[in-house]
């Protein structure tokens, strides 16, 4: 797959296959195109797909509207969760959950049922009860925002979760909680893409495969040991190896 933004090529040749039940980590230095990949999969506007295709559960993903991708089970945990002033978290989430249910042909949850579900899922990430009464992400600390993303993931029960630098801005305790949440949601039917700079998160969310993204291209793929190697050597050796790349 190749992707451009305003004529500038950001991704040029990504080949990736993720099977059910697998966790893949995408690592790479700043500006390598990691977030672009996450956004393109989720269907964010503003990217031009110049070549290639993405197949998700047997269907062409790239022609689908972002809300349809979400309803079909793609979840993006945002690197920078967006604030929506005046919209209470609880009504935002109720709408989201019921849109997913509607898509599956299930009846919408009543207010009571939804609150019960919310209480249950909150425990998973030890989210402060009071936060869901606030406006979406407004006045949340960095850590709370990230926990809130995983909380939403728990509510929406996605098939493919894309965690875009979920570890950035987290202290070690919050990191453990978030990782625990992600692990608890893992099943043989679900897949996860973990986008991160650091090995640290991968101590807690153990990947089946690690891919190194550099200049819009996957330059190396291996098992979890690759993450440790990167941690030890930094990205310089990758850069050197690929110095001839455009």
């Amino acid at each position, binding site marked *: 797959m190749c992707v451009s933004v305003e004529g500038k090529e950001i991704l040029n040749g990504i080949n990736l296959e993720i099977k059910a039940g697998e966790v893949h980590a995408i690592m790479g230095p700043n500006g390598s195109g990691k977030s672009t990949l996450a956004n393109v999969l*989720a*269907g*964010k*506007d*503003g990217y031009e797909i110049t070549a290639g295709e993405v197949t998700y559960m047997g269907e062409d993903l790239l022609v689908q*509207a*972002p*809300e349809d991708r*979400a*309803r079909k089970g793609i*979840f*993006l945990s*945002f690197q920078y*969760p*967006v*604030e*929506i*002033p*005046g*919209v209470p978290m609880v*009504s*935002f*989430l109720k*709408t*989201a959950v019921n*849109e*997913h249910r509607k*898509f599956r042909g299930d009846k919408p949850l009543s207010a009571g049922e939804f609150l019960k579900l919310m209480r249950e899922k909150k425990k998973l990430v030890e989210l402060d009860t009071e936060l869901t009464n606030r*406006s*979406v992400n407004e006045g949340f600390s960095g850590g709370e925002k990230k926990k809130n993303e995983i909380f*939403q993931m728990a509510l*929406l029960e996605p098939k493919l979760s894309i965690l875009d630098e979920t570890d950035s801005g987290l202290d070690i305790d919050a990191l453990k909680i978030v990782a625990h949440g992600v692990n608890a949601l893992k099943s043989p039917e679900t897949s996860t893409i973990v986008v991160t700079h650091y090995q640290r998160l991968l101590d807690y969310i153990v990947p089946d495969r690690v891919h190194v993204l550099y200049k819009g291209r996957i330059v190396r793929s291996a098992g979890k040991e690759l993450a440790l190697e990167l941690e030890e050597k930094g990205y310089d050796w990758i850069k050197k190896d690929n110095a001839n790349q455009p």
Partner: protein
Amino acid sequence: MMENQDNILHEVTQSDYKYGFYTDIETEVIEKGLNEQVVRTIWEKKGEPDFMLEFRLNAYRKWLKMEMPDWAYLKIPPIDFQAISYYAAPRKKPKYESLDEVDPELLDTFNKLGIPLEEQKHLSGVAVDAVIDSVSVKTTFKETLAEKGIIFCSFSEALKDHPDLVKKYISMAVPVGDNYFAALNSAVFSDGSFCYIPKGVRCPMELSTYFRINAANTGQFERTLIVADEDSYVSYLEGCTAPMRDENQLHAAVVEIIAMDRAEVKYSTVQNWYPGDKEGRGGIFNFVTKRGICRGESSKISWTQVETGSAITWKYPSCILLGNNSVGEFYSVALTNHHQQADTGTKMIHIGKNSRSTIVSKGISAGVSDNSYRGLVKIMPGAANCRNFSQCDSLLMGDKCGAHTFPYIEVGNSSSIVEHEATTSKIGEDQIFYCNQRGISTEDAIGMIVNGYAREVLNKLPMEFAVEAQKLLAISLEGSVG
């Protein structure tokens, strides 16, 4: 990417006005045009007391000498005041004792608008005065209210049954020559609502007037007068709709509120006059004078408005804070889409000591519309220790609309504090994408974001009204995000 967004917005805002139907009822309309004879004819037709003729003629003569105001940020096409008929009424009996006598077509009209006039069908105990074209057709719950001494009736009835009360309070807040449109209204107003809450009475239900323009080529000029005597409380609602027509129709109303010592009046409006079509054809010209006077100490008047309709809106619900420790509030959401224009805001005139006022204005502009906030905060030299807080926010959708803020602040003493905050923002594509990513469609996302933006004001509305207003905001924006 912006273009794409604009397309989405465009699609989302192209929905239709759902109250645009016309009811075929026999209507009596007087000849078009305005002169002293027309003013006399209206007075005669209504069988009003003598002082009203003088009142009307005085207003008419003042109006003749006045000029149409041109200071608002509005492009107003010339209005031919001689091409308008100043009185239209359903031909059948003007007022009904029981519902059986009401023209079924009329009943049906109000049912379609979601305003059932059958009291037993009424959900929440809101008393309604239904005004169609120039005439009040039915006031519900009158007897229940009368038990508490509350008078709630059409203006015509008030002039028949309580002429002294009307005479005492009319034009107390809005003098006949106050402005061009108030003078016009005072000369030709045909009906409206009157409400008097006696001393110490807390009105047990919401009072409501529902205005409907039906006849073509007529103007609607109604008048509302609310008097809250000492230690009383009332919450008042106003709603309005009109059929879809290619030509413009004029609506020039006057609302006056008088609050005596420790009285509190809460006035809420959801203004949904026909806004015209997507190309800007037709729609109501809405030139309205609304003013309350806090005459008594510690009295309070609170205006809440949700403005989504009309081709042109010119409206400044204001408070004259005469009493010491009196309180004035103005909460407004004004939404313009397509070719709509709105110049709206408030005036807070602090005369009493320790008087306080709050202004929260939320403008939303979409399409190629223009939306202006215009507000005056004036603190007189003798009004010590006054407080005002103003917040004026504008939300823009797309890149073809305009938002403007014209705050005027005059502070006459040094013991008072005035604060003004203003923000302008665009609906963020990031916000929309975030919603999309959680499975929420762009259209629903916009409705949600706009309602969130306006929440502070919507929360001030009575419950039922708030739900309606939320839907209205979302519908009014269908086809418009950017």
